[in-house]
């Protein structure tokens, strides 16, 4: 049975909180929580102790009770749990085999799962309510109030720091994943202000602590504003901040195994990828077709303006070349036979180039030459150019 995507996300969230909370302890004991299954192993170990009753269990019994997991894994987690005293020997003596579990770590675990599921917002509300009640109690002392103020300042400082860091420098995806920190902040701020008000009016000597709390609350409010602003700016058109980011889906699709992928596909029916034509697209396309005028290429500008003298025309390198060539071909004569010129050249490539030049001279509107073809065709057998249309190339009066 595969894990659905929600399960994976849930595990990741649990792991995130777990890691934060136990990082310090775990680092010291050399056993970081590196995968979500170790949280499950912990839960299973504590569960087996709950089943076992007051006599406790040996390590081997625990391994057997947690047969779902590999023995090595269970033993390793057992060591970790013992290191931070979640599991203790029944009697503190050497070679004592029986252990029992403290209830606090399990409560902590439940609490962690709950925080991971709901984002810790509800717990924070409860904490605020409790603190408010405690400072309202008639027998509350200055020290209680000082403690309360100090704790709340710390909570809001931490919240604000985390959010501000994300809002300023974080990747927007991370910010979106942590958007739950933003939710319900009005309620939190109001409650915190109530506590602050109560403390300040009852114990005016706690002015300094209250100031710290005020600053912490204000910092949290600023961080919330900054983060919300960043999210809204990044979101663009969509307001669906609760949607999983696109990257998360891509990563999942790339990394999930067949089972996990097919579990997702069991739940979703979607259409095959196909071009989509929104109504607006159709309207735009039709309207743009009706309003376009055919593109016209501007005609080439004449090289001489009508009525202006030839000298005004832009000097034309091609015309100069043709003029020089024409003068060379004509020499002193006013006209020359094309056949004669072709015969001088004698080969096909040169003849072709010559014909092209002659035609260009004829067509050029500033050059005083003309090319006239006759109807006669000279056919000879010997040279390579044996079919030559007769014609004459002449200088004309301007």
């Amino acid at each position: 049975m595969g894990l659905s995507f929600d399960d994976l996300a849930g595990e990741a969230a649990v792991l995130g909180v777990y890691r934060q909370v136990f990082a310090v302890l775990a680092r010291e004991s050399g056993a970081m929580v590196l995968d979500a299954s170790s949280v499950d192993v912990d839960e299973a170990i504590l569960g087996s102790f709950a089943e076992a009753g007051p006599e406790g269990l040996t390590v081997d019994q625990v391994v057997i009770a947690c047969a779902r997991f590999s023995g090595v894994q269970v033993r390793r987690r057992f060591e970790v749990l013992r290191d931070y005293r979640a599991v203790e020997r029944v009697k503190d003596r050497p070679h004592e085999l029986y252990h029992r579990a403290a209830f606090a770590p399990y409560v902590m675990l439940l609490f962690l799962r709950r925080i991971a599921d709901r984002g810790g917002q509800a717990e924070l509300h409860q904490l605020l309510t409790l603190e408010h009640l405690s400072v309202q109690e008639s027998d509350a002392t200055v020290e209680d109030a000082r403690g309360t103020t100090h704790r709340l300042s710390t909570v809001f400082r931490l919240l604000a720091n985390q959010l501000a860091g994300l809002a300023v420098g974080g990747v927007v995806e991370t910010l979106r994943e942590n958007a739950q920190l933003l939710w319900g902040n009005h309620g939190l701020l109001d409650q915190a202000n109530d506590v602050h008000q109560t403390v300040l009016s009852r114990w005016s000597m706690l002015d300094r602590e209250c100031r710290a709390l005020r600053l912490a609350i204000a910092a949290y409010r600023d961080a919330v504003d900054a983060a919300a602003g960043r999210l809204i700016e990044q979101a663009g058109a969509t307001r669906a901040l609760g949607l999983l980011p696109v990257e998360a889906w891509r990563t999942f699709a790339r990394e999930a195994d067949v089972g996990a992928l097919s579990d997702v596909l069991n739940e979703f029916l979607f259409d095959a990828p196909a071009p989509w034509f929104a109504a607006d697209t159709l309207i735009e396309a039709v309207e743009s077709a009706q309003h376009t005028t055919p593109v016209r290429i501007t005609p080439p500008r004449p090289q001489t303006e009508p009525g202006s003298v030839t000298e005004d025309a832009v000097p034309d390198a091609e015309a100069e070349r043709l003029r020089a060539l024409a003068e060379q071909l004509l020499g002193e004569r006013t006209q020359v036979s094309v056949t004669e010129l072709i015969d001088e050249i004698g080969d096909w490539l040169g003849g072709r180039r010559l014909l092209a030049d002659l035609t260009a001279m004829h067509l050029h509107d500033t050059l005083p030459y003309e090319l006239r073809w006759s109807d006669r065709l000279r056919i000879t057998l010997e040279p390579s150019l044996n079919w030559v249309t007769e014609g004459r190339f002449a200088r004309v009066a301007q």
Partner: protein
Amino acid sequence: MNDVDQAIAWARARAAGPQRVPPSTPSGVGMRRLVETEAGATWLLPMLPEGAGPTVLEELGLSATAVEQPNDTARVLAACLRCCWSEPNGSPWPGVVASWEQVTSVFRGITDNRDERYSNIALVAGVRRLAGAGWLRWSEATREVQLGPRVALWRDPELSTLRELWRLIPSIDIAPNLTAGPDLAIGPDLAANPDLAAEPDLDTEPDLAANSELGTTGGSDE
């Protein structure tokens, strides 16, 4: 329909889009049945929840499936919609069959200043593309065009926009026996030849939509 059949039907739809099946085929969960006019076949169209349509892509800044010649293809679809959506007060599905000449004329009406040859190339290419994507049904043999199952994906707000489009595009009615061919000119010819065989069709159209704003459409074409 058991789980396996359902899974297969879903897999087909996810891979290849709307499926044309015999009318007796049961439809799985989440599928919409679209019956063809002659009831000879049924299309199974995957229905997406409201707000999960292709518009989400735009919101997320992702590119949709690319279309070649997107504008011309959209114009071809608009032309076919004009020809096949017989009663714009209702749903475009199933619509009526449009002859190739009708579609050609309307398409040329939309893109009136274009060379005929290029216009035909664009039209054929567009129709093939749209038929491949399930927006049109096209029979190459009979050269008849019908709207495809995907038109049923347009929701009400979009349909009202499309009705505007329907009114925007001048209507061409060509009776099947008319031999004028694809190069039939649009408005002026119809106005110049009141005896044209298409004339009765022009008259019936406003009657279909009597007492509605569509009544003005038929008149404005002339």
